[in-house]
């Protein structure tokens, strides 16, 4: 049993799938993230793969200072990522709201709303730094009984939001 657990944890480290979400970013970090998963940096060597659906993902990559308009979507998407999961905050905005600090439309930083495992500061961060951040988050995924490093340790509210989103998709939408 212990061996099986070890195998699964090893595979978690080796196969981090990403979901990218913008919570009101200026697009600078998004461009850098896209650059870092393009052929030049070849992140497939680490098993990193950008997925289209949050349900397929292990690591949630979030850019932006979390605006009021995106807050509910952020919680829903966080709830939709199946356990075990990790969150990487990309750019200084997600860590400290950066230039947008104090703005009435901004509700950041990110760890006020969901637990964050790794922050990659920079405005925008370089692709090398982003890849390192993702690799660190992947290593955390493979750790036994891990708890998120920054922010709330319970994420019950977000789980409920994810379930509610599931209910919505179940309603006939023709």
């Amino acid at each position, binding site marked *: 049993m212990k061996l099986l657990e070890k195998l699964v944890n090893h595979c978690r480290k080796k196969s981090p799938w990403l979901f990218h979400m913008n919570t009101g970013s200026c697009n600078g970090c998004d461009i850098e993230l896209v650059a870092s998963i393009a052929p030049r940096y070849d992140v497939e060597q680490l098993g990193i793969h950008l997925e*289209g659906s949050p349900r*397929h993902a*292990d690591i949630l990559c979030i850019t932006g200072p979390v605006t009021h308009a995106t807050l509910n979507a952020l919680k829903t998407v966080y709830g939709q990522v*199946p356990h075990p999961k990790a969150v990487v905050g990309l750019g200084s905005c997600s860590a400290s709201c950066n230039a947008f600090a104090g703005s009435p439309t901004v509700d950041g930083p990110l760890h006020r709303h969901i637990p964050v495992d790794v922050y990659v500061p920079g405005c925008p961060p370089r692709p090398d730094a982003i890849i390192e951040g993702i690799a660190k988050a992947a290593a955390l995924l493979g750790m036994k009984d891990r708890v998120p490093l920054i922010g709330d340790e319970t994420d019950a509210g977000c789980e409920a939001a994810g379930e509610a989103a*599931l209910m919505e998709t179940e309603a006939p939408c023709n």
Partner: protein
Amino acid sequence: MQLTAALIRLLIFPGLLFAVPAAWFFLYVERKTIALMQQRIGPPLLQPFYDFVKLLGKESAHYPGIEGLLMKLWPALSVCVLLGALALIPVFPWRGGFSGDLILLITLLELPSLFYILAGFTSRSIYGKVGSMREASLSLSSNLLFLTAIMMIAVSVHSFRLSDLAVPSASPARWLGLAAILLCIPAKLRLNPFSTSSAEQEIYSGALTEYAGADLALWELAHGLEWLALSGFVTSMAFPRTGIRLADAAVFAALSFSLVVLLATVAAATARLTIDHSVRFFWRWSVALGIAFLISAVVFRG
């Protein structure tokens, strides 16, 4: 005795025990070929295995009631059906054993596509529905060409038995048919340029948008098995047999491998066509090749 032989074919070789690692290897070859085409190093050899085990260790989406059951049923059925198809592929046609006919094999190869369509509709996600609709229209148009080509090959050897079909003949009808089948395979595997139904990022993940965990792992496995079954099916009709088992098996493996490399190269070198373009492409070729098939079936009748 026959039951034992059938069970061995289903569970050991070329079934479960052999097919699953082989499917992972083919998925690896696909990704590695695309990486090499883009001047990258690409994933490690065990990457599809890592992905599979990781997905098994994740939680699945909780759907209530019959929907939840169906969501779990479609990927499991796909894997079972493809294992059945693999057991039928005639690598050594004179060995006898569990020999089925062409219609059964075609049915088993078609069912996963149907399950994929049903999976998208069962999940009730709008992206799943769009993916399913695209897969349905693509499957309808590519199957027209696929089935006419297979029928022509069958007519040219006067048999629906797989063991007769696997015996090579120099008939030009067979090569024309195989070329037509090769055109259809990217659509069946949802590869570029006919990847509209899975269209990652564009419609999230198509029919599989709501899938997670072990169910998604089974879909990944089914995709690998589809690679194995389709490349094996084409290869079994195309290669000349020497009669020496070991040599035949080696030639079979080498040809299937080259087919995967060829298809992945095409996928890396092309962009995704829209659904209109894909459907139009298949209907045009179907008409042109259909006429050629009819003429050759009459001219080269054995």
